[in-house]
C-alpha cells in the first residue's frame, strides 16, 4: 500500500464516498451499455436485410445492363441527362447519447422527362434500391458508432470494476486497519498513562 495515503478518519470517509460514487457510476454505465447493446441488436437485425437488397440490386443491374445494350451506350448517356439528380442531406442525430449520421432524402431523382418508359421505370426501381442502400449505410454507420461506444463503456466499466473500486476498497481497508491499530495503541498508551498516574498517586501517599 502506498505510503502517501493519509491515515485519518476524514480520508477514510472521503475514500468511502469515492467508492460509493464509483459503484453508482458503474451501475449507470452498465445500464447505458445494456441499452446500447439492445439498440445495437435492433440495428443489427435491420442491417441483415443487406443480403436481400444486394440480390434485388443484382437483378436490377442485370436489367440495366440489358437496357444499356438494347438502347446503346451513347443513347443511354443522353437519356441520363434528362434525369434530375436526387437531393439528400446528411444530418447528425443523437441515438442514446451517441451522435450518429442520418441521411434524409429531400428529393427523388426526377425521371418524368425520360422519353423511354422502360428506362423511366428502370431508373425509378434503381433509385428505390439505392435509396434503401443509403438508409442501410446510415444504419451500418450508426451500428459501428454504437459498437465503438459500447466498447468504450466496457473499458470504463471494466476499469472501474477491476481496478479503481478494488484499489479504493483496499485503500479504505488499509486506512481502517491503520486507524484501528492507532486506536488500540492509543488505548494502550492511555491505559499505561493511567497506570503510571495511579502509581504516582499511590507512591505520593507514602512519601
Amino acid at each position, binding site marked *: 500500500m502506498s505510503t502517501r495515503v493519509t491515515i485519518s478518519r476524514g480520508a477514510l470517509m472521503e475514500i468511502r464516498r469515492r467508492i460509493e460514487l464509483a459503484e453508482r457510476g458503474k451501475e449507470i454505465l452498465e445500464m447505458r451499455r445494456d441499452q446500447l447493446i439492445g439498440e445495437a441488436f435492433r440495428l443489427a437485425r435491420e442491417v441483415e436485410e443487406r443480403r436481400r437488397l444486394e440480390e434485388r440490386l443484382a437483378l436490377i443491374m442485370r436489367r440495366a445492363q440489358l437496357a444499356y445494350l438494347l438502347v446503346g451506350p*451513347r*443513347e443511354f448517356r*443522353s*437519356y441520363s441527362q434528362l434525369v434530375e439528380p436526387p437531393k439528400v442531406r446528411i444530418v447528425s442525430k443523437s441515438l442514446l447519447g451517441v451522435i450518429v449520421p442520418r441521411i434524409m432524402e429531400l428529393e427523388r431523382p426526377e425521371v418524368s422527362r425520360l422519353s423511354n418508359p422502360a428506362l423511366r421505370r428502370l431508373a425509378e426501381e434503381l433509385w428505390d434500391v439505392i435509396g434503401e442502400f443509403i438508409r442501410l449505410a446510415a444504419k451500418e454507420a450508426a451500428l459501428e458508432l454504437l459498437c465503438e461506444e459500447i466498447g468504450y463503456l466496457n473499458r470504463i466499466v471494466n476499469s472501474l470494476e477491476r481496478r479503481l473500486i478494488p484499489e479504493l476498497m483496499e485503500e479504505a481497508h488499509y486506512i481502517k486497519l491503520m486507524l484501528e491499530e492507532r486506536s488500540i495503541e492509543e488505548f494502550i498508551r492511555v491505559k499505561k498513562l493511567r497506570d503510571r498516574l495511579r502509581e504516582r498517586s499511590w507512591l505520593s501517599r507514602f512519601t
Partner: protein
Amino acid sequence: MAIEIYLAVKARALKLKLLPAEAYEAMLRAPTFKECTELLSKYGYVIRDPSLEGVECAALEHMLSLVDKMIIGVDGPPGELLRAYSFGRVELELVRDALRSLAGGARYRPPRCSALATLKVGPRLLSTFKDLWSAVATLVELGYRTLGRAFEYYEEVGSVAVLEMGAEADYYARCWRLADSLLMSREVKRMVMLDSASRWLYWLAVLKFEGIGREILSTLSKCMMPGLPRHVVAYGVESPLEELSSVARAVHRELGEAFTRGFESGFLVLEAELLRALWLNATRILRLRPIDLSYALACVLALYFEAKNVYRVLSAKIAGIPEETVREALQLL
C-alpha cells in the same frame, strides 16, 4: 431500272462482307476486348481507339464506307434514297441524342468521328447548339419541319418523346417522299413503310402511355406515316390496347405479333420486337434476292444492324457485362 440492277449486284457483293453468325459467337466467347478487335479486323473493322467512342466510330465508319462504296457513281433518285435511308438514319440518331441532351439542359457532345463529317446535320453542327430553341430553329431551316411543329407541342406538354418523334417523322417522311416519287417497286415502298410503321407503333405506344392528346398524336402520325391510308392513322384515343393492336394488324401481321408479345414485357422489348420484325422483313428480301432497290435497302439495313450489334458487343466487353446478358440482348434483337 439499269441503275437498280447495278445497285442490286453491288449490294450482293456487299452482303458477302456481312459478319456471319459464327463471328458473333466468336466475339462473345473472346475473353478480352483485344481478341475481339483482332477478330473484327479480319472482317474489315479498323478499331484504333479502344474507348466506347472509338468503337462506335469504327462501327459507323465501316458501315458508312461500305454504303458509300455501293452508291459511288450512282447519280439520281435511287442513290439519293439509299443515302437518305442510311446516312439519314445515323443523322437521326445524333439529332435525337442532341435533342435529349439539350432538353436536359446540357450541351451535346457528339462522338468525334471523321466518317460523320459527311452528314448534312453532323456532329460539328450539333455541338454548336447552346439551347433547344436554337437547335430546333436551325434544324427546321435544314428541313426538319415536323420537328418545328413538335417543338410547339413540346412547349405545351413538356414531353421529350414528342420532339424525338417529330425528328423521326421528318426522316421517314423524307425517305417516303423519295420512295414514292421515284416510281419505285412495291417492295421498296413496303420496306420504307414497314420501317416507319414499326417506329410509329413504338411512338404511339410511348405517347399514349404518357397521356399525350389525340390532336398531337394524329398530327405527328400523319407526318410520320404519309404512305398509310388516312383511315388507319385517324384512330380514336379511347382504348389504347385495342386501337394499337388493330393498327398493328392493319400495318403488318408480323408487327402485330411482335407488338402483342412485346407490350406485356415492356417498352424495351416492344422496341426490340419491332426491330426484329423489321429485320425479319429485310432477311426475307435478302433471301428472295429481287433485282431492285429493295435488295440494296435491305443490305443497308443489315449493315446498320451489324454496326449496332458490333458496337453493343464491344461496349459490353469494355463495360465488363457478362456474356449471357449480351447473348440475351442479341437474341432479343
